[in-house]
C-alpha cells in the first residue's frame, strides 16, 4: 500500500498526471470510470465558477469577505471524492471543491459567505461540519468524531482539513496526537498552498515537508501533488481505506494559492508575479482538461459551454438567497440554548419594544 510504503523523510511527492495531461504512473491511477472523471472535472469547474461569481459579486458589493480556492481544486475535489456519503468531512474554510463533492448546496455556501448563519445549517443528512474559522481548532472535533466512531463500532471515516499555516497551532498537534493514541479513523489533509495570508511556509516551519510531521504521532504521512487530481484521489482513497481499517493518516497536498487570501487581501504586497507565474502551468484544471481532450472525452467547445452553464447555475443560486438573507431578529436569540434563557427573552422583548416605539415615533 502506497500509504504504508511512503517515506515522507525522502521528500518525494506522489504524482500520477503530469502537466501535459499524461498518466505517468499508471500503477497508481485510481480505478475510476470516464464518467467519474468527467463529473470530477465538472465539479472542479463548478468550484472555479463559484469563485469567479463570488469575487465579481464582492466587487459589486453584493457579497462580503470571500476566500477563493483558485488553484486548489484538485486537492479539494480529489480528497473529498474519496469519502462515502456516511463519512464525515471537517473543513477549515477553504475547501469549496470538497464541499461540493460532499453535497453542500451552492446556495447555502453563498449564503454563508453572504453573512448569514443559515449557510452553516448544511442540511440534516450531510456529514459535513460547518466552516471553522479559528485555525486548526476543528482538528479536535474531527478526532472526537473519530473517537466516537471507534466507540460506537461504526465504520466511518473522518476527513479533516487545515492549511500550511494551520500546522503551527497547538490544536493541530494535540489532535494528531490523540488520533495516534486512540487509532481513530481520521484522515488529516493539509492543503499546503505555500501561504498563510502573507506568511510563506518557510516562516511557518523548519520541517522539511509537512507530511513528515505525521511521524511524531505514530501515523503514516504522505506527500502528494495537490494539483494532480488523480494523485490526490489515489492517495485519498488509500488513506480513507487505511483509516477505516487501521488508524489515522496525514496527507500533505502540495499546491498553491493562486489568488488573494481573501477579498480583503492584496498579495502583490508580499509576492511577485515571478513566483506566481510558473504555477499557472501547473493549473489542476488544465491538466485534467488536457487528459480529457487527449482521451477524446471532451471537446474545447463543450468545456466553454460547461463553464457558462455552471456560472449561470451559480448566479441562479445566488439570486435565490440574495434577497432572503437578512437575519430575523428572533433568530439572533433563539439558538443559543434549547430554550431561551429569561435573560435572552428580556433582551429580545426590550429590543422589540424599542423597535416598536421607534417605529411609532416615526424614526
Amino acid at each position, binding site marked *: 500500500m502506497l500509504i504504508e510504503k511512503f517515506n515522507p523523510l525522502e521528500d518525494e511527492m506522489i504524482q500520477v498526471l503530469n502537466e501535459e495531461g499524461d498518466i505517468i504512473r499508471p500503477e497508481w491511477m485510481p480505478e475510476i470510470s470516464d464518467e467519474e472523471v468527467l463529473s470530477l472535472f465538472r465539479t472542479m469547474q463548478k468550484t472555479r465558477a463559484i469563485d469567479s461569481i463570488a469575487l465579481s459579486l464582492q466587487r459589486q458589493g453584493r457579497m462580503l469577505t470571500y476566500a477563493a480556492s483558485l488553484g486548489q481544486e484538485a486537492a479539494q475535489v480529489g480528497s473529498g471524492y474519496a469519502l462515502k456519503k456516511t463519512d*464525515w468531512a471537517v473543513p477549515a474554510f477553504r475547501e469549496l471543491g470538497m464541499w461540493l463533492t460532499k453535497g453542500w448546496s451552492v446556495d447555502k455556501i453563498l449564503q454563508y459567505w453572504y453573512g448569514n*448563519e*443559515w449557510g*452553516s*445549517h*448544511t*442540511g*440534516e443528512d450531510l456529514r459535513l*461540519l*460547518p466552516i*471553522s474559522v*479559528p485555525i486548526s*481548532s476543528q*482538528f*479536535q*472535533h*474531527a*478526532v*472526537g*468524531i*473519530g*473517537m*466516537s*466512531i*471507534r*466507540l*460506537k463500532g461504526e465504520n466511518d471515516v473522518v476527513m479533516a482539513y487545515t492549511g500550511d499555516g494551520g500546522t503551527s497551532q*497547538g*490544536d493541530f498537534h*494535540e*489532535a494528531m*496526537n*490523540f488520533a495516534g*493514541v486512540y487509532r481513530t479513523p481520521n484522515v488529516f489533509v493539509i492543503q499546503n498552498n505555500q501561504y498563510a495570508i502573507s506568511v510563506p511556509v518557510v516562516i511557518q516551519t523548519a520541517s522539511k515537508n509537512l507530511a513528515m510531521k505525521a511521524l511524531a504521532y505514530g501515523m503514516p504521512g504522505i506527500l502528494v501533488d495537490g494539483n494532480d487530481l488523480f494523485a490526490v484521489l489515489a492517495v485519498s482513497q488509500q488513506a480513507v481505506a487505511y483509516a477505516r481499517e487501521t488508524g489515522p493518516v496525514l496527507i500533505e497536498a502540495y499546491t498553491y494559492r493562486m489568488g488573494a487570501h481573501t477579498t480583503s487581501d492584496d498579495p502583490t504586497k508580499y509576492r511577485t508575479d515571478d513566483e506566481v507565474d510558473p504555477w499557472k502551468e501547473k493549473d489542476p484544471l488544465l491538466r485534467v482538461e488536457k487528459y480529457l481532450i487527449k482521451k477524446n472525452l471532451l471537446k474545447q467547445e463543450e468545456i466553454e459551454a460547461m463553464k457558462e452553464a455552471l456560472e449561470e447555475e451559480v448566479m441562479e443560486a445566488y439570486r435565490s438567497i440574495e434577497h432572503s438573507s437578512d437575519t430575523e431578529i428572533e*433568530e439572533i436569540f433563539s*439558538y*443559543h*440554548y*434549547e430554550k431561551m*434563557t*429569561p*435573560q435572552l427573552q428580556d433582551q429580545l422583548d426590550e429590543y422589540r419594544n424599542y423597535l416598536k416605539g421607534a417605529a411609532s415615533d416615526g424614526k
Partner: protein
Amino acid sequence: MANKINIVQAVQQALQNEMALDPTVVVYGEDVGVEGGVFRATVGLQQEFGKERAFDTPLAESAIVGSAIGMAINGMKPVVEIQFMGFIYPAVNQIVSHAARYRNRTRGLRHLPMVIRAPYGGGIRALEHHSESTEALFAHIPGLKVVIPSTPYDTKGLLIAAIRDPDPVLFLEPKRIYRAFRQDVPEEAYTLPIGKAKVLQEGDDVTVVTWGAMVPDVQKAVSGIEELSIEVIDLRTISPMDRETIIESVEKTGRILVVHEAAKSFGAGAEIIAVVNEKAFLSLEAPPMRLTGFDTTFPLPRGEEHYIPSPERIRHKIRELAAY
C-alpha cells in the same frame, strides 16, 4: 433508597447512574480511567463500564474539550474532566469559540450535549494554579451554562441534569468541601433544575447570595448572628442566573451582600448587583455589597488564609450592611 455520601461521591454516583442508564455517556480526562481521578471522582467507572467509556487521555486540555465537541456531534454525551480549574485555560478557545457557539452557528442543526467538569476554588493548601475561581469568565460567554453545587444532594441532581442537558454545561465542583460533610442522597438518578437558586434560609433583614464552597462559610457566619433575620441564597447556577429568586428576596430585605471567593472586580458579584439595581432599585435600603477574594492571584498556602472571606469576616460584613 438513600445513601449518605459527600460531594465527590455524589459526583461519582451521578456519573455512574448516568453511564448505567445511557450508553452514550462517556467519561474521560487526565487520570480519570485507571486511577479514577486525582480526587477519586471517577473511581470504579472504568472497572464497571470498560476502557471504552471511562478512560485516560494524553495531557492536553484543548484536545479533551475539543474532542468532546466532536463526540457530541456524533451523538455521544461526553463528560470530560479538567483536573483543576486552573488548567482549563488551554481549552478556552474550544469552549468559547466552539462549545458555546455550535448550536447558534448551525441554527440548531448541531447542538452539543457535553459537560466539562472541573474542581474549582482555593483553601486546600495547594500549589499555584490549583485554587482558581474564575466562574465569571465563563458566565460572560453566551451559549454556556455554568453550574456550581454546594451539597451532595445538589451535586448529584445538578450533574445529572447537566449530562441530560442538550447544551454544554461547565460544572464546577467546590473541591474545598468535596469531603466536608455527608448527606442522605437517593441512590437512583434524579435531576434538579439548572438555572434555579435555592433559598437556604428565609429572613427579612438582609439577603446573602453565595455559592459553592462559600455556602457553609456563609451558613456558619449567619448562625452566629442572633439579632438579624437573614435570607441566604445558594445561587447554584451562575449562568443563566436565577434573577427572580434574588429579586424577590431583595424586595423583602432591601439589603444584599454577595459573597464569593473569586477576585472582586469584574466578578460574578458585580452582575448580581447590576441586576438588583435594574430590577429592585426602589427596594434598596442600603448599597448592595460584595465580600470576595481580593483582586490578586490566589496566594500560596502560607498566605491563603487571608484570601477566602472567613465566617468572621462575613459576619462582620453582614452587620455592616444591616447597620447601614
